[in-house]
């Protein structure tokens, strides 16, 4: 599996546009800045909705109305994050694919997506009964808390990607080499 991922990353790395983005003076910076600044739109609004569910904020506003009105800009923000994220990986594919922090981040993103889906289903099914309650039912509060914690860890992992502590081109323990998917004798990093 790691060999497959490495081969795919090397193939991407050798494409023209990957090199162009990576070596451009402005483009990579613009993409990364957009990715970071769009946090305000995606994560910021998601945190507002989660805080409502937990009863920490907006307790006197209809939970359903708040979630449905803020949903569109939040999803727009996530689309932008997703596109810019893909471009960032495409610009530096080998290092990204073999980054411990990136792999953890992707795992947590999958967990967040499943959590969001379950949350949305539960909320749609139950909304009539508690809409103006200060706190959502327990199951939804758990979902909101999971969302807050995992997204915070995702941001931390995203920040850590820039650091080279566990990069494959440095000597690493077998555990780190396993998690990062380092390939013996690899020539590209």
């Amino acid at each position, binding site marked *: 599996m790691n060999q497959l991922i490495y081969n795919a990353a090397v193939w991407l790395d050798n494409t023209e546009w990957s090199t162009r983005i990576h070596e451009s003076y402005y483009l990579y910076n613009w993409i990364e800045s957009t990715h970071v*600044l769009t946090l305000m739109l995606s*994560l910021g609004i998601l945190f507002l909705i989660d805080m409502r569910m937990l009863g920490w904020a907006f307790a006197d*506003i209809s939970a359903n109305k708040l979630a449905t009105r803020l949903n569109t800009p939040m999803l727009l923000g996530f689309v932008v994050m997703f596109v810019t994220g893909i471009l960032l990986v495409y610009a530096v594919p080998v290092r990204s694919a073999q980054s411990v922090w990136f792999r953890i981040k992707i795992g947590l993103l999958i967990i967040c997506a499943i959590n969001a889906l379950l949350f949305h289903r539960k909320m749609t099914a139950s909304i009539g009964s508690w809409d103006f309650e200060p706190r959502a039912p327990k199951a939804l509060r758990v979902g909101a808390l999971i969302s807050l914690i995992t997204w915070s860890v995702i941001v931390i992992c995203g920040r850590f990607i820039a650091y080279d502590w566990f990069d494959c081109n440095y000597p690493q323990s077998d555990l780190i080499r396993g998690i990062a998917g380092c390939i013996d004798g690899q020539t590209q990093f």
Partner: protein
Amino acid sequence: MIFSLILNYRKTLCSGLFFVVLVSFLFSESITSSHLAVLPIFEWMETTWFGVAGKTWGALFAVVQAGHLIGLGVLGGSVIASDGRLLGLFKGLPMRLVVDRCHSIFTWSLGLLVATGIFMACGVAIKIYYMPVYWYKMLALTLGVLFVFFIRKPIVDRDLDQVSPWLLRLLALSSIMIWFTVAATGRWIGFS
């Protein structure tokens, strides 16, 4: 009429005047000596516990930086929700409640940003002292804080039905632009 205008908008006018004086000072000849005068403060910052910790443990610096990003996200979210409502978006949500609740969240997230920002600044104090973009961010941040607490809040604290919708939209757009500028200059620091 002019007198009543001054009386009703004294906080706004004072804030505007302060900002004009500040910008005039920044572009005056005395800025060089003032810039040199604060160098000892930045040298001292690097010797504090925050500065030493930030330099010694890269992971700690990175975690605090991530906290800064989370604060940025929450502040941005509260600005978008509140100013979006003032712009007429998110219809159906009570404007008064959204603006008031978002202001509380804004204040807490600003506190988080300032706290994490001070920690990070101590770790790289001399480096940011010599960065023009850091001073642009501080200018934008000063403008943002003045704007929110002395211009925007006094106006939105009134009965929103009595305030001109165009004034509310102007406030909202200005707020979004100012905080985007603060965030963008902050990002620019990372590239310098």
